[in-house]
C-alpha cells in the first residue's frame, strides 16, 4: 500500500499508467463506438477524409479500423507473451534460486544457454516453419516460450539472495513447508521485481511481434500493428511519402511501449531509493 502511494507520487508512473490504461480502454471500447470494418471502402491508399480520418490502405480498407484491430492484437500478444514468460521464468527462477545445488545448477545452465542464443532467431525459425496456421496466439506463445529465460535469470538472483536470510531460517523453524516459504516468505519480497519483469516482458512481446511481422512472418489470421507497417514498407508507401500508412501505426506502438517503459523506470526509481531525490 505504501509502495503504491509512493508510486502515485511519481509523475512518471502516473503518466505511464494513464497512457497504458487509455490504450487498453481504446482497444476494448473503441470498436463499441466506432464501426470497425475490414471491408474495402474506397480507393487504394485513399487520402484521409472526414469520414475516414486516417485514410485507406493498400486494399482500400479504413486505417482507423485497422489500427483499432491492430492495437488489440498487439496488446493481446504482448500480454500473452508477458504472462507466459513471467510465469515460467518466475517459477524456474524462484525455485532454482531457493533450492540451490544440482537442480539450480542445471536450471541455471539451461537459462544461461538460452539467454545467449538470440530469441528472435528462434522466433524467425519457428515462424518460418509454420506456413499455415501461423496465428496471433501461436506467435504470442512462441514469444513467451523463447523469452522466459530473462525473467528466470532476474528472479533467480533475487531468490538466491533471499535464501540465506534469517527470516527464511526462522520460517523453517516455524515448520513452514517449502511451498509456503516460497509463496509467503520469498514471493512478496520479489513481487515488485517480478511485476517490473512482467512489464518489460509485455513490452518486449509487443516489439517482438511487430518485428517479426515487419519481416513478413507475422500472424496470418489477423491485423497487427506490425503487419500494417510491413504492408506500408512492402507496397512502397514509405518511399512514396504516404504518411497515413505508417505514421499512425508507429505512433500507437511507440506510445504503447513508452507507457510501459515509463511504468518500469518509475518503479525502478521507487524501489531503488538512491535514485529518488
Amino acid at each position, binding site marked *: 500500500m505504501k509502495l503504491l502511494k509512493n508510486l502515485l507520487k511519481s509523475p512518471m508512473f502516473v503518466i505511464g499508467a494513464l497512457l497504458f490504461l487509455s490504450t487498453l480502454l481504446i482497444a476494448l471500447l473503441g470498436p463499441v463506438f466506432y464501426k470497425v470494418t475490414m471491408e474495402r471502402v474506397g480507393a487504394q491508399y485513399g487520402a484521409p477524409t472526414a469520414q475516414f480520418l486516417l485514410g485507406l490502405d493498400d486494399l482500400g480498407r479504413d486505417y482507423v479500423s485497422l489500427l483499432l484491430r491492430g492495437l488489440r492484437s498487439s496488446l493481446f500478444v504482448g500480454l500473452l507473451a508477458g504472462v507466459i514468460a513471467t510465469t515460467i521464468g518466475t517459477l524456474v527462477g524462484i525455485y532454482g534460486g531457493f533450492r540451490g545445488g544440482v537442480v539450480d545448477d542445471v536450471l541455471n545452465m539451461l537459462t544461461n544457454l538460452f539467454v545467449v542464443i538470440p530469441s528472435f532467431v528462434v522466433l524467425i525459425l519457428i515462424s518460418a516453419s509454420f506456413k499455415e496456421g501461423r496465428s496471433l496466439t501461436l506467435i504470442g506463445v512462441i514469444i513467451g516460450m523463447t523469452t522466459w529465460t530473462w525473467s528466470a535469470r532476474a528472479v533467480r538472483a533475487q531468490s538466491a539472495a533471499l535464501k540465506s*536470510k534469517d*527470516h527464511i*531460517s*526462522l520460517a*523453517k*523453524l*516455524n*515448520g513452514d513447508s517449502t511451498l509456503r516459504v516460497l509463496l*509467503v516468505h520469498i514471493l512478496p519480497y520479489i513481487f515488485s521485481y517480478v511485476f517490473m519483469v512482467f512489464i518489460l516482458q509485455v513490452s518486449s512481446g509487443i516489439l517482438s511481434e511487430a518485428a517479426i511481422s515487419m519481416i513478413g512472418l507475422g500472424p496470418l489470421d489477423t491485423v497487427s500493428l506490425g503487419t500494417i507497417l510491413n504492408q506500408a514498407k512492402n507496397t512502397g508507401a514509405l518511399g512514396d511519402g504516404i504518411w497515413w500508412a505508417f505514421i499512425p501505426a508507429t505512433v500507437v506502438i511507440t506510445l504503447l511501449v513508452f507507457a510501459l517503459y515509463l511504468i518500469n523506470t518509475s518503479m525502478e526509481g521507487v524501489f531503488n531509493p538512491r535514485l529518488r531525490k
Partner: protein
Amino acid sequence: MQNDILFEAKNCACKFGHGKKVVKAVDDVTFDIKDGEIVSLVGGSGCGKSVLAKMMLGLHHPTSGAFTYKGEPITDYQVHWREVQAVFQDPFSCFNQFFTIRSQLKSAFGIYKEKPSNFEMEDRVDQALLAVNVKPSEVEGKYPFELSGGQMQRMLLARIFVLRPKVLIADEPTSMVDACVRANILDYLMKLKEELSMTIVFITHDIGLAYYVSDRLFIMHKGKIIEQGAPDDVTQRPKSEHTVQLLEDIPEIHKEWIKR
C-alpha cells in the same frame, strides 16, 4: 529430569567443500549439554561456533562422528524444532516485512502438529509479549520496520516465550543491539531459564557476556573446543593460551588492557 543429557557430540566434525578446498568448520568436538543449563560457545569470527549452533538446530549435518539429541540422531526436523528453537543475530532480517509482528508470532504455532484453539494462541501471544515487557497494544497492527532494533530483538524472544521449547539456541542475539540494551536481552534469557527451565546455548564472541549468563563455557578456536568448564574456572584459571588471549582482549574498565 535435572541433568539429563540433551545434546551429545562424540568426535563430531562438519566439513564444507571438497578436494583441496575443504574447510573444517567444526573439527573433532566432543561435548554434552545437560537439561536446564546455560552453555556459552565463545570464540572469534570463523571459529565454527555458528556452524555448531546450526548443527544443533539440524540446519547443518555432521560429516563425521556422532551427534545426538536425547540419545538419537536428529532425523525428523518438524519434531526436533518443537523442542529446539533459535534466536538470531539480526532481529530485522528475522521477520517477514509483509506481515504484522503479531501474525508472525502466531504463525510460530505452525510447528505443532495440532494447533491450539485460536483463543489459546492469541492468549499465549499476549502472555509472551508481556513476558518481554511489551504491552500487546504497543505492537498491535505493527509491521517489523516500525519498531526499533531493541524492540525487534525482544519480539524474537517473545516468539520463544510463545513456543516454550525445551532448548533455545541464541546465536549472537546481542551483537547487533546497542550496548545499553544488551543487558535487557540477557535478562530475558535468564528469565527463560528460570521460569520455563529452558536449556540455552548462547553463542557470542564476547567472553564477558558469556561469563555473565552461563553455567558452563565452551571456548572454541579453529573448529575445536579448546576448553570447557565453569565460568569462574575458565575466566580465572584459564588453561589454554587462546582463552588467556580472549580474556586479555576484552577491554575491561578495571584492568590494564593496552599500553600507551
